[in-house]
């Protein structure tokens, strides 16, 4: 990096300021209400997902009994925003992008939700906080992937990651954007701050889904050695939050790593993968997890 300090760290800040000061463009022929509302809806739903994430003991905005249910519902709102953006832009590329986004989100929400069922069955709770607390065994290593149900946990973890890639419109499932054929897909007509909102939403949603995977599969804030801390130690929330952020950021890095590796799929390949492979696999895992938990619960 040539300019912007050590490894160009200040480039990001400069980029944000640049996007803030850019001209606000509303294309003629665009639907003014939908066009303006779409980025706000997308950004708002991405931020709402953070409300139920259990960052550390005591650091959570709302511990809902139906936390994961709320999160899935809110996450699917971004798709509505994408459709609004595509329709409101009055542009064929945007519309194609939005249609693909809708098809993709509708298909992949099923394996996404189904792959969450094994951990939900294992912990017997929809609450992210409760699920995290149940993984504190073995000196902080009682994670779901290390539990006796690891043989269901590991495949369902990868299924969840794959489906969340499609849900967040990340490569190789970035068909709503697909620069090579749709210019920029649903956000072709967006510039400046509204464009920045779409991008921020993408990364915020990536972090949120990674955080869900962390809370359900990778033990949330639990880290090895946490039992060495005194009961009710003031360090626990800080170190727990650090562990949680490190795990979630690692999964975000994995998503970026997938982007380096895999080329974009065709739309029919995306549909095939979603309906013919991920959905049956997720269903099978659900049945396996249900059988295992039932067998374990037998007296």
């Amino acid at each position, binding site marked *: 990096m*040539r300019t912007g300090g050590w490894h160009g760290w200040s480039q990001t800040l400069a980029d944000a300021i640049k996007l803030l000061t850019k001209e606000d463009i509303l294309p003629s022929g665009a639907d003014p209400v939908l066009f303006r509302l779409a980025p706000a809806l997308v950004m708002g739903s991405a931020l709402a997902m953070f409300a139920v994430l259990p960052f550390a003991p005591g650091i959570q905005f709302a511990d809902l009994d139906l936390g994961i249910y709320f999160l899935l519902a809110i996450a699917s709102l971004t798709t509505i925003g994408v459709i609004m953006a595509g329709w409101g832009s009055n542009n064929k590329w945007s519309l194609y992008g939005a249609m693909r986004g809708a098809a993709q989100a509708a298909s992949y929400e099923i394996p996404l939700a189904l792959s969450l069922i094994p951990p939900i069955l294992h912990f017997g709770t929809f609450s992210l906080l409760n699920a995290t607390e149940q993984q504190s065994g073995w000196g902080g290593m009682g994670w779901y992937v290390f539990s006796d149900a690891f043989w269901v946990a590991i495949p369902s973890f990868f299924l969840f990651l794959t489906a969340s890639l499609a849900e967040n419109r990340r490569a190789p499932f970035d068909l709503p954007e697909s620069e090579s054929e749709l210019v920029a897909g649903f956000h072709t007509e967006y510039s400046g701050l509204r464009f920045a909102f779409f991008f921020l939403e993408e990364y915020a949603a990536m972090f949120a889904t990674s955080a869900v995977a962390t809370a359900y599969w990778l033990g949330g804030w639990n880290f090895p050695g946490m039992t060495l801390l005194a009961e009710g130690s003031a360090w626990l929330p800080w170190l727990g939050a650090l562990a949680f952020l490190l795990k979630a950021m690692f999964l975000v890095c994995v998503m970026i*790593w*997938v982007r*380096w*590796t*895999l080329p974009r799929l065709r739309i029919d390949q995306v549909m095939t993968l979603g309906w*013919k*492979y991920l959905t049956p*696999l997720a269903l099978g895992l659900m049945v396996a997890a249900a059988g295992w938990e039932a067998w374990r619960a037998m007296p």
Partner: protein
Amino acid sequence: MGSMEGDALTPARPPKPSSFRRWWVNLYEGVVSTAQGMSITLRTFFKKPVTVQYPEQELELDGRYRGIHFLEQDLCIYCDVCAKACPVDCIEMDATRHGKELEWHVFTLDYNRCMLCELCVYPCPKDCIHQGEEYALVTENREDMVLDLLTWKGLTDEQKQKIAETEAAKAARDAEKEKGE
């Protein structure tokens, strides 16, 4: 379904693999090839980047690099061979002969046209035109692309020193001659 042996009308075909079997094969191949690709990108991630940050760092050039020309002006005999050899006719030279001495007026090379092909270097009988390692030719207008080779442009310090030595030797010889007279 036709018979497996086949006849003139329905030739035998290899049996289709069952789609259930193919589903598992596809799944296996998809997972394995993704893992292979991910391992390749991971290995590349930990390699040192090959990108050269150009204005700060520069590539080390091979000795045979064909960059901007430089001329050993005192060796040149104004024979025009390099200008004749040039396929794009970019060398201009003009000088007046005073007996054995040359009075140079012009020796320019037009880098708007020059393709750095080195064809002017080979025919030189005195081996006095060379291509150096200097390649940055950034100007704001086309006129500046016509370089005057008489200004010793592009010579390395070593070459400059060599030229200075021969100049000094020449001056010493002249001084001796004058003494003798």
